[in-house]
């Protein structure tokens, strides 16, 4: 593996709340090589979005970030605002979850694309316009010249997400962070958008982080998967190794919660019972222990650290790893 493009080193994010400090991200280490894909998976509130905002330097003003976010040899958290601004779009781009709210309702699609291009690439207006049309065509929007003068509300949700992707790709970033890019879309559109992202990623050799709550989304698309729970990475492995044998009961439970076509109708989904722990009151032991069916006394007493599994590159944080993937399979 070549030198990492992004390396997240011991990153912790704390948010002050009236009930005390909320630790949204808890000592996370991750890295990503150029051109590769990292999937970050976890249920709502597990800190995956906060982690992505920490990388993007878009945390709420009151949030406290510690640790380092090394990107291309620089620590993004300590970069001067102006240097950071110049790096955005050209090196680091994002696609947000909800295309209904991530495009400005009062500006035309053309404006929102061209302003990005003209801010970062030295192109005059006609050249930026030409590039915008090419980008819209590349993300599969029919009659792109016509779309430039339209406003977001004149486009469907899937169309808007394609536009958001076109904006993200406009300055050829080295890293694209897709934060639940398909969660707000119709199921029929989801696969199209994911395929589009994968295709453009290959064409442009960019690295990508896909954030999702759906292990199925990362299964065929990510090189490596990190599973997050209660702000921590609890299992991390190359995708194939993870699906061949998952060690962490939480990962298994996440996979079991995905509806499958072959199950009989009216079968209740094996949902994960209970709720994630209150992040303002950290547990002494493993944060998944209260919901884990394998939990033993030790799990409630001490926090398991990430440790290496037999297969290379596979890390997990569990005292009682699952012995075999019990007929779940990917």
């Amino acid at each position, binding site marked *: 593996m070549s030198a990492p493009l992004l390396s997240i080193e011991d990153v912790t994010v704390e948010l002050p709340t009236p009930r005390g400090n909320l630790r949204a991200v808890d000592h996370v280490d991750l890295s990503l090589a150029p051109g590769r894909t990292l999937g970050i998976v976890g249920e709502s509130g597990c800190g995956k979005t906060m982690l992505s905002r920490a990388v993007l330097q878009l945390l709420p003003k009151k949030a406290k970030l510690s640790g380092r976010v090394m990107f291309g040899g620089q620590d993004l958290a300590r970069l001067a605002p102006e240097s950071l601004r110049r790096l955005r779009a050209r090196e680091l781009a994002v696609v947000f979850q909800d295309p209904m709210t991530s495009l*400005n309702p009062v500006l035309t699609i053309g404006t929102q694309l061209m302003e990005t291009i003209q801010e970062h690439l030295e192109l005059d207006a006609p050249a930026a316009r030409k590039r915008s049309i090419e980008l819209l065509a590349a993300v599969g929007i029919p009659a792109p010249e016509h779309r430039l003068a339209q406003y977001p509300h004149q486009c469907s949700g899937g169309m808007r997400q394609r536009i958001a992707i076109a904006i993200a790709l406009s300055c050829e970033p080295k890293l694209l962070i897709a934060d639940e890019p398909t969660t707000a879309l119709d199921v029929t559109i989801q696969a199209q958008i994911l395929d589009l992202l994968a295709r453009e990623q290959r064409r442009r050799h960019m690295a990508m982080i896909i954030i999702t709550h759906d292990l199925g989304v990362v299964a065929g698309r990510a090189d490596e998967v990190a599973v997050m729970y209660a702000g921590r990475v609890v299992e991390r492995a190359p995708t194939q190794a993870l699906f061949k044998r998952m060690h962490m009961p939480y990962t298994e439970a996440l996979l079991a919660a995905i509806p499958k076509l072959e199950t009989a109708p009216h079968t209740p989904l094996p949902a994960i019972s209970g709720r994630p722990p209150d992040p303002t009151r950290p547990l002494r032991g493993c944060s998944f222990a209260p919901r884990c069916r394998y939990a033993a006394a030790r799990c409630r007493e001490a926090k398991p650290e990430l440790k290496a599994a037999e297969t290379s590159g596979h890390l997990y944080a569990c005292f009682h790893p699952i012995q075999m993937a019990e007929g779940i399979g990917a």
Partner: protein
Amino acid sequence: MLILVVRRLLGMLPVLLAVSLLTFLIASLLPGDLAFVILGDQATPENVAALRHDMGLDQPLWWRYLSWLGHVMQGDLGRSFRTGQTVLQAVGERFPVSLQLMLMAEFIGLLIGVPIAIACAARAGGAFDRFMTGSAFAMLSMPSFLVAILLIYLFAVELRWLPATGYVPFTEEPLANLRFFVLPALTLALAEWPGIMRVLRSDMIATLQEDYIALAKAKGLKPSRILFVHALKPSSLTLVTVTGINIGRLLGGTLIVESIFALPGIGRLLVGAIYTRDLIILQGVVLLVACGFVIVNFIVDMLYAVLDPRIRHGHA
């Protein structure tokens, strides 16, 4: 868009009718018979009866309303029985003064309020924001006659920079005209900016939480572009409403400020008409001012569509 304009215009008709009815009723139901007012206390009952017949005052109320409305439709709002001036002449003479005062006051008010609102919203909760929010509250609670007197004392009496009272038409001496208007316009503007600042500030703070602002930051746009292009336009709908209401209100002149600074505007015309029981002028002026208000609100509605494409395309 055309459908929207036509629909709003049709919607104005019943409002205008209601306004005309109310105006007429107010003038008609005021105590005191107009004939007595005109003839004075030496009038004989015969003279009064004759005048009442001439003026149509012996007709039933609904008939008088319809005939007055008919005249109004033809552009005849009546004539003052004191000066012989028609309502349109009287208003035509005074309106430019009130219009100029309104324009200058709104301009200064926006000039103070908008930049402060943006600066406060950009660093909401900061020292500047807290200071300005407090100052706005203090200014809101100061009555305009007090502000006027303080300004006169400071700029006219102590510093002697500006005249305290008086008026010359802009067409005769433009510079002197502007100097006469500075203090009254500033008095009104000092009462306007806190409202402007508060609504724009809170709308801006809400807009700055939106996903599209986060995306604009992620796109690496300059902070000034994010504030002025991405955040200001979607935040300005309430600002436009408030400004529209202010303009409508000031179009009718301002009794207190026009009186203090001796500006011959609509406000002074109204006060005069009330003192002299010049009911024809009174009801004509009130009707015209109310129409002005309705028209300004129509323009505000149209501005919404300009600002927000979703309204333009009938999505909201």
